[in-house]
């Protein structure tokens, strides 16, 4: 539910994986097969400027390219790392009202929705524990309700209860936010069964 860019992550995994795989297999081949070594020697001529035999000027130019490439690579890796996680927000609704021009802004904090939902859902008998968070999804806001039911609780019963509570929230907010209900295993109280069936 967080804002991780999964496409970017997978693409970079595939690219890094392919490069490492090709490097590893290539090295093994060069070490073990004579024809692969010959091909490598023909190729490696282009690395001459990086070696000890090169003139100082050519060497400086070649290694400057290495330096620049490595810096770019490092920055790219940091950019990919920075796309992981995030997306949780503090406000649910921010509205400056109708076009009639009344001054002021209405802002509803995520904490208000969290408290309202937590106290209402937590009172349901089949719910062991729960967490409510507000995330940014596709430019809008979405609420995630993570419920850990008691052992043996009927998922449909949990869903129906949450649906009713969310309907109340809709009436309260005057807006139908997208809501994700996650019925998860484990957690506090899940080891005990419901006393009353």
């Amino acid at each position, binding site marked *: 539910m967080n804002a991780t860019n999964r496409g970017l992550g997978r693409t970079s995994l595939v690219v890094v994986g392919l*490069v*490492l795989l090709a490097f590893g297999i290539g090295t093994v081949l060069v070490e073990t097969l004579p024809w692969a070594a010959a091909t490598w020697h023909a190729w490696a001529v282009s690395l001459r400027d990086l070696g000890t035999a090169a003139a100082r000027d050519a060497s400086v130019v070649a290694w400057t390219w290495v330096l620049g490439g490595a810096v770019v690579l490092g920055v790219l*890796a940091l950019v990919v790392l920075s796309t992981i996680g995030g997306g949780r927000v503090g406000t649910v609704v921010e509205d400056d009202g109708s076009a009639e021009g009344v001054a002021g802004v209405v802002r509803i904090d995520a904490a208000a929705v969290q408290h309202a939902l937590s106290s209402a859902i937590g009172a349901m008998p089949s719910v062991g524990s729960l967490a409510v968070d507000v995330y940014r999804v596709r430019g809008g806001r979405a609420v995630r309700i993570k419920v850990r039911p008691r052992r043996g609780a009927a998922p449909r019963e949990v869903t129906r209860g949450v649906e009713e509570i*969310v309907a109340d929230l809709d009436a309260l907010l005057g807006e139908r936010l997208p809501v994700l209900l996650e019925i998860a295993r484990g957690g506090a109280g899940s080891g005990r069964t419901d006393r009353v069936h």
Partner: protein
Amino acid sequence: MTGVDPARSAGDHDGHSAVYRRLLRRETTASRSGTVVVAMLVVLLVAAAAVFAATLVLLDQRAAGVDPRAVVDAAVRAPSGLDTTVVVGIAAVVAFLGLVFLLRGVLPQRRPRHTMSSRRLAVVVDDEVLASAAARAARSATRLGPDAAVGTVGRRTVDVVLRPAAGVDVPAVAATEAVRDELESIDARPSLTAHVRVQPTGRVDG
């Protein structure tokens, strides 16, 4: 994306169907962020090593008596002058790491979860919750103790095994009926079929 078809369960969500489709797709497949972090750390390490080597050469210095240019020379001359066992070993490790990254990036990775239909919400349920609900349903039709029913949930099947104490008769048909009713009310996607089995070897209750 996969056979889950979250679009169906997000059918009549007023105006949120695109958001719900995205949420359900993301919640039913695993995130690779752990592997991505490892891969990016490897890349950072390589980049840092290259920067270090280039700096040494540009300043005409050596680190621990090794000139990076001599390292390049040795690589160009390969395989002569290198210990084959060590190099092949390291290369194999690198190739394996690359293969792991590649597979983690390419293969679809499903979480053990199902989605549920709802008019208002996008709902995902852990399979473990479904299993315990099915076990509870089977048990409630048979008056067995809390540990006598065990449920397992696959992608399309629910297996409930009843293990009554020796000598106790179990109404298997009623239990199957109860599990089927429970699954019908859950209405999971992809849909689940129930199999209830009574384990013939009895148990001795303490």
